C-alpha cells in the first residue's frame, strides 16, 4: 500500500535507493546533491541496507570506483551535481562503453564560472553525449519513480547501460512536496534481484575489461553502442507499464499536456513544466489553444514520437535551461531535428531561461505563449533564439 509523505526530492531519491538496496555506492558531497547521499549514508550506518559505501576523494574516483564495482558484478549507485558531473566526464563514457548499468541521480545545477550552486541543466546537458540513458523528472514524485524504474531499464539484459535520473537542484531537491512512497517489498519485487552479466569476479573465467581497440574495430564498437540505444525506448515503455500497474502512475517517453488540439506549444524540461501548465490553463480559458510537452527520456531522444506529437501545431517554443554558446539550446537542437523530416512543420523559437537558478515565473510562460500566438497567426518568427527573464 502506498504511503503518503511530505519530503524533499533528495529525501525521496535517497529513500528509493534504500528500497532498492544496492550492493555498492560511491559518495561525494556537492550542493545540491549532498544531502541525498548523506541520508543514504545514514541508512548504511543504521544497517537499513546491505550497501557498502566508498567514501571517495573526488567524483572522478567515485565514477571510477562505481565502474570497478559494476564490472566486478553487482548493483551500483552514486549521485552528483554540476562540477562533480563535469569532473566525471571522462569516466561517464567508460561506464557506458563498458556497458555497466550504474544508476546515478543528477541534481541539476549550473556550471562554473562564475561559481553558482543553483539549478539549471548545464551539467546534464553537457553529459548528453556520454552514452548514458537520461531520464528527467518534474518533481519529487517523478524523481522517486524514475530512480526506481532506472534500475529496471539500465539492467535490462538487452540494454545494460548506465542511467542518469535528472531533477532540478533546490527547486525539487530541497522543496518539501507531498508524494507517495511504495512499500519496500513492492520496490524490491519490482526491481528484482541483480542479474550478472560478464562479472569480473567470475574467477573461473578471467575476463579483461578495457582493451585497446584501434582503427580496425573502434568504429564497429560505437555502431554497436548506438544500436543498444535504439532498443531503450521500448524498454522504458514496458517498464513504465509495469510501474503503472504497481503505482497507478503513468509514464511515457514524454508527457503531453493539453496538446491534442493545440495550435501553439511549449517544450520544457523538469520543474518549470509545472508552472507552464498553470499558465497554459489560463490561455486555454482565454480560448487560445496552447499545449505542452515535457520530455522524460532525453537520451535516447524520441525523435519520431516527438514529431508525431507536435505535427499539428503551428508554432512551438523550445525552452532551454542550459545554453550552447554560439549555438541553440540543447533541447531546441533535438526538437528541431525531430521536426525537420515533417513536410509541414511548426515554426520554432528557442528561449533560454532560468540559468543559475534564476526564477522562472508564470509571467515568462505568458510572455512566451503570447508571442507564440502571434507567430501562429502571422506565420513569422522575428527572433529565433532569445534569453528571457534577463535584465537589460
Amino acid at each position, binding site marked *: 500500500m502506498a504511503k503518503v509523505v511530505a519530503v524533499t526530492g533528495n529525501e525521496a531519491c535517497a529513500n528509493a535507493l534504500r528500497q532498492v538496496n544496492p550492493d555498492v555506492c560511491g559518495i561525494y558531497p556537492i550542493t545540491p546533491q549532498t544531502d541525498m547521499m548523506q541520508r543514504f549514508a545514514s541508512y548504511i550506518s543504521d544497517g537499513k541496507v546491505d550497501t557498502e559505501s566508498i567514501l571517495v576523494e573526488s567524483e572522478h574516483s567515485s565514477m571510477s570506483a562505481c565502474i570497478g564495482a559494476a564490472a566486478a558484478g553487482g548493483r551500483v549507485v552514486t549521485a552528483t551535481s554540476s562540477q562533480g558531473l563535469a569532473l566525471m566526464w571522462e569516466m561517464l563514457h567508460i561506464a557506458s562503453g563498458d556497458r555497466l548499468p550504474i544508476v546515478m541521480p543528477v541534481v541539476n545545477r549550473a556550471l562554473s564560472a562564475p561559481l553558482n550552486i543553483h539549478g539549471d541543466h548545464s551539467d546534464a546537458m553537457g553529459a548528453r553525449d556520454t552514452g548514458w540513458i537520461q531520464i528527467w523528472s518534474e518533481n519529487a514524485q517523478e524523481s522517486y519513480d524514475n530512480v526506481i524504474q532506472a534500475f529496471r531499464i539500465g539492467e535490462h539484459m538487452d540494454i545494460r547501460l548506465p542511467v542518469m535520473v535528472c531533477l532540478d537542484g533546490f527547486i525539487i531537491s530541497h522543496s518539501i512536496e507531498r508524494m507517495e512512497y511504495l512499500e519496500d517489498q513492492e520496490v524490491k519485487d519490482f526491481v528484482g534481484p541483480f542479474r550478472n552479466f560478464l562479472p569480473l569476479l567470475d574467477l573461473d573465467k578471467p575476463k579483461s575489461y*578495457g*582493451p585497446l*581497440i584501434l582503427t580496425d574495430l573502434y*568504429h564497429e*564498437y560505437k555502431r*554497436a553502442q548506438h544500436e543498444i540505444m535504439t532498443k531503450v525506448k521500448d524498454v522504458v515503455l514496458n517498464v513504465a507499464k509495469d510501474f503503472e500497474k504497481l503505482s497507478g502512475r503513468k509514464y511515457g517517453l514524454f508527457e503531453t499536456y493539453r496538446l491534442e488540439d493545440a495550435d501553439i506549444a511549449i517544450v520544457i524540461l523538469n520543474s518549470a513544466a509545472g508552472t507552464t501548465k498553470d499558465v497554459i490553463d489560463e490561455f486555454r480559458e482565454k480560448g487560445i489553444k496552447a499545449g505542452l510537452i515535457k520530455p522524460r527520456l532525453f537520451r535516447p531522444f524520441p525523435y519520431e514520437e516527438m514529431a508525431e506529437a507536435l505535427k499539428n501545431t503551428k508554432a512551438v517554443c523550445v525552452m532551454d535551461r542550459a545554453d550552447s554558446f554560439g549555438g541553440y539550446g540543447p533541447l531546441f537542437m533535438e526538437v528541431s531535428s525531430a521536426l525537420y523530416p515533417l513536410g509541414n512543420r511548426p515554426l520554432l523559437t528557442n528561449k533560454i531561461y532560468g540559468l543559475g537558478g534564476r526564477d522562472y515565473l508564470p509571467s515568462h510562460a505568458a510572455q512566451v505563449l503570447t508571442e507564440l500566438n502571434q507567430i501562429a497567426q502571422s506565420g513569422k518568427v522575428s527572433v529565433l533564439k532569445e534569453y528571457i527573464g534577463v535584465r537589460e
Partner: protein
Amino acid sequence: MKAKGWRDLPPGSVVLEGGSAVKFKTGSWRAFRPVWIEENCIQCLFCWIYCPDMAIKTKDGKRAEFDYDYCKGCGICALECPGKKGKKAIEMAEEGK
C-alpha cells in the same frame, strides 16, 4: 580470417578469453636469436625468470628449449646467464644467418 562486423562484437568490448594473447606470436620481431648450449647450462633458471616474454619453456622445474614463437630476441637471458666455468649457456646469433 574475416574481420568482425559490428553485430559480432562482445558487449562492452570485454575480452572473454583470459590469456588469449598466446594467439599473437611476437617471434617475428626478433633480430637476434638466443641459442641454448645445453652442456653449459647449470639449470639456474635465471633466464626463465628474467625473460620479459615468457619465451623459455620449462618442464618439471627444468629449463627446456626457447619458445621462438614469442622470443623477441632482447638478449636479457644471454646477459644474465651465468653458464658453466665462464662459458655461457646462451649465445645470441643474428637472425637468418
